[in-house]
C-alpha cells in the first residue's frame, strides 16, 4: 500500500518568505508527527496530532511555525518569515495510534532558505 508522502520534495525560498509543507499520512493512521532533521540539531520533534484532539505543539521552535491537520488526514506545516536557520529536512510520520506503535516516515521535504 501507499506510504507516507510529502510535498514538495525540495523547496528553495528567500529569507522572509512563508512556506507550506504538506504531508499525506497512511490511510487509517490516526497519529501524525512532524520532525525536523538538521545538521546541527539532529532529529527534533515538532508537533503531534492524534485524531480530533488538540495538537501537542510543545516541539515547535518559535511562533513562526504552525501546523494543521484537516479532516484527520492531510497535514500542512507552515513556516512564516523564514530564516536561514530554518533550513533542514522536515519529516512527517504517521502511526495507527500513538503509544509504542511503529511510526512510518515519509521521504521528507528538504528546505533551503537563502
Amino acid at each position, binding site marked *: 500500500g501507499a506510504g*507516507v508522502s510529502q510535498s514538495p520534495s525540495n523547496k528553495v525560498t528567500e529569507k522572509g518568505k512563508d512556506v507550506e509543507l504538506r504531508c499525506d499520512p497512511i490511510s487509517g493512521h490516526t*497519529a501524525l*508527527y512532524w*520532525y525536523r532533521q538538521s545538521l546541527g540539531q*539532529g*532529529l*527534533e*520533534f515538532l508537533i*503531534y496530532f*492524534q485524531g480530533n484532539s488538540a495538537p*501537542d505543539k510543545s*516541539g515547535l521552535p518559535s511562533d513562526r511555525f504552525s501546523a494543521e491537520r484537516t479532516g484527520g488526514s492531510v497535514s500542512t506545516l507552515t513556516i512564516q518569515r523564514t530564516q536561514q536557520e530554518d533550513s533542514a529536512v522536515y*519529516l512527517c*510520520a504517521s*502511526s495507527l*495510534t*500513538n*503509544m*509504542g*506503535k*511503529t*511510526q*512510518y*516516515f*515519509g*521521504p*521528507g521535504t528538504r528546505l533551503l532558505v537563502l
Partner: protein
Amino acid sequence: AQSVTQLDSQVPVFEEAPVELRCNYSSSVSVYLFWYVQYPNQGLQLLLKYLSGSTLVKGINGFEAEFNKSQTSFHLRKPSVHISDTAEYFCAVSDQGSQGNLIFGKGTKLSVKP
C-alpha cells in the same frame, strides 16, 4: 527529560565483520525503544523496537538489539555486515505514558568497506 546518547558518530567496518552500534538513554519513566535506519537520500525505516517482554529483539536485515534496563542501554548488533548496510542509524525512545513522540540520538554513520 529524556535523552538518547549514541556514543559513536561514525563506525567504519569491513564487509562480513560483526558490528555493534551503541545507544544509551536517560529517562525517569519506562520507555519504548527503537532503532531506525536512514539510507542515503531516503527517509527513516524501522529496524526493530522494544516494547516489552524478551529483552533480545530481532529486526529486519539480520539486526538485533538487547535492552538492558540496569545499564539503560539498547545496543544494536549484526554478526556479519554487508556493503548494503552502509547507512545512518538512529536510536530513539518514547515514554510509555506519552503521546509517542520520539526522542532521537544524534545518529551513527556505519560505513562498510569491501
